[in-house]
């Protein structure tokens, strides 16, 4: 028994080739348009940057000692900040994820504050604490230790803004990772350090790497806290974003070139880390 619908379908199907996909996965028009506009907001400025960059000047700018210093300083301070994050943030994340104590959620909140704090406020706060006449800065100065406007200050500023990213990421991984594995390790005779080293740490590794990537990227782009707390001295505190800012005051072409370099470095690091380690560790 054939209905008219069947007939219509039969007539139509040879011409259609492979059948259309079910409509569930297709986007409705009224979502598609804002989605495309959203994408444009993200992509257009970067495209403009790439289009306007004087590419011919790139090799020359790359060999410029100021640029080389800034690039090297950015990579160095960001890397150092990540070392500090690993040494301090990993235990902090572990405590937040695994130890039951009163006020834990309050502490978790405190850790996330720098995440939403305007970077310039972070710089002012750091200056108030470690500045020449700061709360801790003044006694340190008496001991002959000066922190502000040094490379150390850059690392501290980077750590301050990047640590929350790292801690949140690692804590999430440690909380998601089954706490029962710690109990299993204990029943097998492992002390707490062995358990951390051989079970908790490796199971949280994808989160740790993700935290380092996020933190490094955040650190690489850090501007407000750095310029406030460390200043903008070429060779000691002028990181790439500060160099871009300085160049923009005088020579906008140079600023474009530096911006592109920073963009490329950021994208390079992200893709390298994501593809090579992040997914392997997650597997």
């Amino acid at each position: 028994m054939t209905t008219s619908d069947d007939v219509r379908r039969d007539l139509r199907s040879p011409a259609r080739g492979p059948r259309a996909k079910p409509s569930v996965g297709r986007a409705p028009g009224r979502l598609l348009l804002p989605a495309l506009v959203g994408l444009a907001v993200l992509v257009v400025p970067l495209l403009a940057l790439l289009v306007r960059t004087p590419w011919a000047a790139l090799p020359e700018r790359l060999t410029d000692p100021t640029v080389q210093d800034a690039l090297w300083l950015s990579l160095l301070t960001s890397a150092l900040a990540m070392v500090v994050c690993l040494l301090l943030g990993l235990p902090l994340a572990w405590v937040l994820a695994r130890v039951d104590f009163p006020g834990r959620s309050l502490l978790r909140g405190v850790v996330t504050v720098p995440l939403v704090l305007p970077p310039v406020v972070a710089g002012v706060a750091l200056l108030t604490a470690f500045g020449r006449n700061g709360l801790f800065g003044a006694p340190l100065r008496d001991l002959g230790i000066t922190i502000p406007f040094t490379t150390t200050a850059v690392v501290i500023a980077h750590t301050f803004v990047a640590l929350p990213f790292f801690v949140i990421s690692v804590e999430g991984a440690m909380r998601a990772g089954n706490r029962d594995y710690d109990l299993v390790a204990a029943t097998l005779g492992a002390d707490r350090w062995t358990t951390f080293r051989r079970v908790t740490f490796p199971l949280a590794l994808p989160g740790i790497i993700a935290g380092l990537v996020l933190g490094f990227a955040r650190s690489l782009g850090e501007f407000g806290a750095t310029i406030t707390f460390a200043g903008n001295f070429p060779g000691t505190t002028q990181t790439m974003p500060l160099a871009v800012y300085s160049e923009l005051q005088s020579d906008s072409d140079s600023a474009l070139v530096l911006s592109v370099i920073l963009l490329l470095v950021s994208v390079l690091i992200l893709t390298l880390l994501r593809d090579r380690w992040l997914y392997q560790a997650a597997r």
Partner: protein
Amino acid sequence: MSPYLDADIVVRRGGFTLDVALAGEPGQVIAVIGPNGSGKSTLVRALAGLVPLTDGHIACRGEVWDDDAGTPTQVQRRNVGLVFQDQLLFPHLSALDNVAFGPRSRGAGRTQSRQVAAAWLARLGVGDLADRRPGQLSGGQAQRVAIARALATDPALLLLDEPLASLDVAVAMGLRFELSRHLSEFGGVSVLVTHDAIDTMTVANRVVVLDEGTIAQVGTPDEVAQRPRTEHVARLVGLNALRGHSAGTDVTLADGTPLTSTTPFDGEVFASFPPAAVALSLDEPFGSARNRWRGTVRSVVPHGAAVRVHLDAGRALIADVTPASATQLSLVPGRRVWAVVKATEIAIYGAAAKH
């Protein structure tokens, strides 16, 4: 001399109290059964040191793990092996390294630990899977690795928390007999928490029945299966077990139903009879008004060559009838029937006073 395992465990948590005394000698496999919330898991966790005792003591293989004096021995210093229902193999380590984890944590060198681990994997029949990650193992293979991991630390006490519950029926059946063999070769005491009557019958040589945090019954698997003292165990082993009071051969059940038995007894009793001893009819049976119930059919399911009928007769009753009579009586849920049991089929045994 005190027993190899000598435990008197009191744990109070919220409104729940677990109060259980447990003793065992090397080679013994103690099955712990009971309904959900009866305290089985708490008992295992208390033995392992994962839950602190409120009162009591635990000693095993001559070591005191917990008593009134001093701080309890930490989990990692108790010689316990734990096998979990969902295995909990370390996902980032190979099967071999999972098993080697215990010996290594207890001070053996890397090479030696791996040798021990390889030997245990081979004993459990999964020696060829040593390099696999847990994600690449089937449920049965993973549970074998988990058992090997627990045994590789040479524990004094092996705790198994429903080790077969998460496995397919066929896989569980195969592993059950192997488990039985490994546990009988094991030189310590095994405590097996289970929901399964077959586990209890095939693997254990002693059964502890928990009910609301206390021991309702202790005995050999045969004793417990034939004379269950809780309705939970009666259901598990597929018996009808009803509580009542006996004077001579006259038994009055808790709901007032009169029974006649052929075993004289005075006092609180359980009256138990197998489902096959229950006859069903549509018309009220002739003769004495004893040993019978009027009830409603709740469910009718195939059971081997017979048909198992669950009845609601003011209490739950189970009856096994032939498929022919099930058809003849048109047994469907909701059908009203009479259930009769012969006096000679009723076993009468004293019920321990309830705490």
